[in-house]
């Protein structure tokens, strides 16, 4: 929201409401008249897509909880009952399971957009950090949700991930027992994971409100990275962003539906259709796909570093890979936001994207042979991108000449187009 509110309730009831609790005014100001940069492209639609995915996960999750039993003797059977006996249960569960994956697909594209266009730079540091917190909560929620079906991957995934904490000197084992409620993954673990899996999405929703609040204080970035300077740089949220976000959601949900109906187990693991056996580890355990890059980083540290043994080193590297995201606003020293005007950053950014996908692929492979040195090189680049390239490039790179305004950039792009914002909005995806 910027500028004074232009909300004028038309009905008597509307005025009565507005004088007592101006919620409609809040919605109107933030999602109808709110001015947004006129040059936003489709990469800016993932915020909306993520909101709708959170709602999908909450709705399907609440309904699934009505049929699920969080007891080690019943959990696996109750999930099969949902699949076979509960009316439409199979669809609800496939929506929820694939929904988690699509939630992560959207969040990775959203984060990549932020890294490409420098969305984290002042004054949007807090907005970025709130996003990192949401991502952290999503990972915790996704991990605990994967434990609930009580399959082999559930139990052994939980064993390995809580095992990370045993790497901490002195208190590690105590922390692990605190998390598990016992000496191994068992009934107390399942119950507390279920409770927290139900709680965390609501915490995510809370942080999402803060994230959107922060966004509406500082305003959106845009592909040029130049701040809005004049009214002609903007268009109204409705209809422009509403329709664009809506269209992107429909396309995204169509792909989501394809997975639900045609390949619902493609992103899962067949071992999780075998009930958890605490005396038998599957031959090859892997986490869900969205954790694979971090799993590769964990296993890349096969050597001791001074007093830190390889186990603690791997765990520290993995947590550092996530923690480094929080510092990105201060690691990037460049004054220019958008990679469109930073030729070298653009190159390293795309290398980072390729490297992350490669790390993910390595994460799905066993820790042997040439995979190990590949994991190490790839991990090195992951950290070098944040800790070396980002700070140094800002000092030595010569950026391209920036346009004077968003409007100028748009007009430059469509020569002969109208300077009027409505005319430009006919092609709002135009990059600067």
């Amino acid at each position: 929201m910027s500028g004074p509110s232009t909300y004028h309730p038309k009905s008597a009831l509307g005025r009565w409401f507005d004088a007592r609790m101006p919620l409609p005014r809040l919605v109107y100001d933030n999602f109808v008249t709110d001015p947004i940069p006129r040059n936003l492209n489709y990469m800016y639609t993932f915020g909306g897509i993520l909101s709708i995915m959170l709602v999908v996960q909450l709705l399907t999750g609440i309904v699934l909880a009505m049929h699920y039993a969080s007891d080690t003797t019943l959990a696996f059977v109750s999930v099969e009952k949902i699949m076979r006996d509960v009316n439409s249960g199979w669809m609800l569960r496939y929506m929820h399971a694939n929904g988690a994956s699509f939630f992560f697909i959207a969040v990775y594209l959203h984060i990549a957009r932020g890294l490409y266009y420098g969305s984290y730079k002042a004054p949007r540091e807090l907005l970025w950090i709130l996003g990192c917190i949401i991502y952290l909560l999503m990972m915790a929620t996704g991990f605990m949700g994967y434990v609930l079906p009580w399959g082999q991957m559930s139990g052994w995934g939980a064993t390995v991930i809580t095992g990370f904490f045993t790497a901490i000197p002195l208190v590690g084992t105590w922390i692990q027992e605190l998390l598990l409620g016992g000496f191994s993954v068992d009934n107390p673990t399942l119950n507390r994971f279920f409770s927290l899996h139900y709680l965390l999405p609501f915490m995510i929703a809370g942080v999402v409100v803060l994230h959107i609040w922060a966004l509406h204080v500082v305003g959106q970035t845009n592909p040029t990275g130049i701040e809005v300077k004049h009214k002609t740089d903007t268009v109204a949220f409705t209809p422009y962003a509403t329709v664009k976000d809506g269209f992107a959601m429909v396309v995204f949900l169509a792909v989501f539906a394809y997975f639900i109906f045609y390949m619902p187990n493609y992103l899962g693991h067949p071992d999780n259709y075998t009930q958890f056996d605490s005396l038998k580890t599957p031959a090859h355990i892997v986490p869900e796909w969205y954790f694979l890059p971090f799993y590769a980083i964990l296993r890349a540290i096969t050597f001791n570093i001074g007093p830190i043994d390889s186990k603690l080193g791997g765990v520290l590297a993995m947590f550092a890979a996530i923690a480094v995201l929080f510092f990105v606003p201060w690691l990037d020293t460049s004054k220019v936001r958008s990679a469109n005007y930073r030729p070298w950053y653009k190159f390293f950014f795309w290398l980072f994207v390729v490297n992350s996908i490669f790390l993910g692929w390595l994460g799905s492979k066993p820790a042997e042979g040439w995979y190990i040195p590949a994991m190490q090189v790839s991990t090195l680049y992951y950290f070098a991108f944040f800790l070396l390239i980002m700070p140094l490039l800002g000092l030595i790179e010569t950026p391209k000449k920036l346009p004077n305004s968003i409007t100028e950039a748009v007009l430059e792009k469509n020569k002969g187009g109208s300077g009027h914002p409505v005319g430009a909005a006919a092609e709002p995806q135009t990059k600067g």
Partner: protein
Amino acid sequence: MSAHDASDEPTRRDFLYIATGMAGVVGAGAFAWPFIDQMRPDASTLAVSSIEVDISSLAEGASMVVKFRGKPVFIRNRTAEEIKAAQEAPMAELKDPLARNANLPSDAQATDEDRVVDKAKENILVMIGVCTHLGCIPLGQQGDFGGWFCPCHGSHYDTAGRIRKGPAPENLPVPPVAFLSDTKIRIG
């Protein structure tokens, strides 16, 4: 506070301010503790503190797995070759030099005889079958040293359950074990 006179004497309000603050801090801490405490292993989990196992059926070269505190315990009647291989392993090659044997002092060295429970029964090896890396269950009689091999991240243990290769930092731990008779042991 603006109504304060300039004297440095503490007032009744200062006292109430500090007392309320302290009560709040102590109260918050005391209130938080049960929420943390309830997460620890409960009485029924801790109650399974010892089990007795009949090993009379365990022939040479056979292993059995029993569940102790939710974890598998490997009991193996080792063959003569396995004992020999473990005894002949050079101490310098061991990644973890400590015996990790709950029945011995914590600084005991990881020689083969300090890895077993009873030197007279050096063929019987008892250890918690949880990989010391990240908690998977190693597979028996596999890996480069003919002992145990963890499929998760590739840790190799020898025939005395000592870590020889891979990411695991420690030898497989030996739980508290006592021979009740020649064919019966108590774990825990």
